[in-house]
Each structure stands twice: as C-alpha cells, then as structure tokens.
C-alpha cells in the first residue's frame, strides 16, 4: 500500500497524468475545503481549487515525494487562494444588504449588534490580503499556528505578528468609524 502510494507520487513527479488524477481525487476534498475557508465562496473555491491543482501539475518536476503530497498541496492551495484574495476589490461581496442577511453565527454574542458586525466585516475586507488570510486561518478558523505557518511558508512568530497587526489595524479602522471596541 505504501509502495503504491510512493509509486503514485513518483509517477506524478515524472508527469504521469493518471497519477495526477489519482492524487487529485485523493486530495480534492481536503484542498477545496482548505481553500473554502479562505475565499469563503463555494463557486470561487471551486475555481481556485482547479487553479491550485493546475499549479501543482505545472510544478510536478519540483515535487519531492519524500516530503509528502499533502503539505506541498496545501501550501500551493494557500498561495492560490492568497492570489485570489489579492485580486478582489476590498468591498466586493461585502455590501451592507448582503451582510444584513447574514445571521449571527451560532453562539455569537447578542450584544455585538449587526452594525458592529457589518463595520467589522468591511474593515476586515480592507486589510491587506496576507494579514487577512492569516487572521482567517488562525483566528476565525482557529487552525493551529504551526499549521498556518506551514501553509503560508512562514514562521510561527510571523503568524503571531501578522495576527497582531491585523487586529491592531482592525481596531484602528473601527475607531475611525466611531466604534470603540
């Protein structure tokens, strides 16, 4: 079984499309789920998933079978999603009407009213993409910092720093909107 897996990875490295299909089918769910956590739109997540696997297909010769497929795929998926975030205009998909319709998440604080949530969402959309992606994964999705660091290809210290900067920018933005967090 392990030899089979090793053989698939090795064949993929040499550009075998059948091996690529096997890996695609094995990892599509995990990769797409990870991307969905970042882009937060199912249809965009599908497009970014295909883009991420296309990049993997293009980079097959640089893949090291010894290091495993999943971490490599996740890193490429994360960067594909980051590129997607960078291409989005800050306010796109963040209209007040849309967010009025978004129910408060289960277990949310009733004291945090819709206006604050809307303002927060708008401020969040204005953050630089690399801070937004780090805050999404580490704070919103509560993924372990090591996992976030590996996915982004940065150190754990850099993850902490980015989260801190994101929160500080959010606080400043909210204050400018007249909201004292």
């Amino acid at each position, binding site marked *: 079984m392990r030899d089979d897996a090793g053989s698939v990875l090795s064949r993929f490295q040499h550009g075998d*499309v059948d091996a690529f*299909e096997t890996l*695609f*089918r094995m990892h*599509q*769910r995990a990769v*797409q*789920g990870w991307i*969905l*956590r970042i882009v*937060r739109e199912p249809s965009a997540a*599908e497009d970014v*998933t*295909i883009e991420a*696997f*296309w990049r993997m*297909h293009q980079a097959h010769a640089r893949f090291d079978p010894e290091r495993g497929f999943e971490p490599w795929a996740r890193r490429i998926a994360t960067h594909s999603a980051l590129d997607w975030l960078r291409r989005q205009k800050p306010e796109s998909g963040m209209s007040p009407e849309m967010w009025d319709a*978004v129910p*408060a*998440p289960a277990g*949310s*604080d009733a004291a*945090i009213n819709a206006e*604050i*949530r*809307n303002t*927060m*969402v708008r401020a*969040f959309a204005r953050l630089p993409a690399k801070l937004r992606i780090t*805050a*999404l994964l580490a*704070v*919103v*999705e*509560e993924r372990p910092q090591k996992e976030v660091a590996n996915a982004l290809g940065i150190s754990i210290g850099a993850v902490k720093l980015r989260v*801190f*900067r994101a*929160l*500080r920018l*959010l*606080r400043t933005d*909210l204050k400018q909107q007249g909201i004292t*967090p």
Partner: protein
Amino acid sequence: MNRNHESGIRDEEVERMKHLLQNAVPPIGNDPEVTRDLWPGMLRRIHEESSRSAARVPWFDWALGGALLALAAVAPRTIPVILYYL
C-alpha cells in the same frame, strides 16, 4: 494590565478584537461540504493550456522573423538569399 510594547495594544483588547472578528466572520468549520467532482474541469484546463502552449510561438522565432524582415527592408538584394535558406 499587559501592554504589548511594539503595538501599544493591550492583551485584553486583542482578545476583544478576536472575539469581535469571530462574531463578525463565521468560521466555515472543520468539514466543509465539498461534493462536486472537479476532475472534468481540471482535465479541460489541462487540455486548454496544452493547446494554448502548442499554438504559442516562442519569442526567439518572433525575433528571428523580425530581424529577417528588417534585413530584407534594409538590403533588398538579400531577399533571394533569405528565401534560399528558408
């Protein structure tokens, strides 16, 4: 009251901002629903890109063609020589 030296933001403010963010942006969760098979789309992308790259003329060919045209324009007597070597 702990205050981060670099940022001037208190630890409790950080926690408050985290709480606000988590309430404003709901998490997708651990097992998002992913059902559609994307392999046909992936295969289409591979075929599109490979036919595009096959149709793409390398920059060197464009440069060579341009140089030959320029040579023919500057020295028309070279045209038969160029045609001979084509």
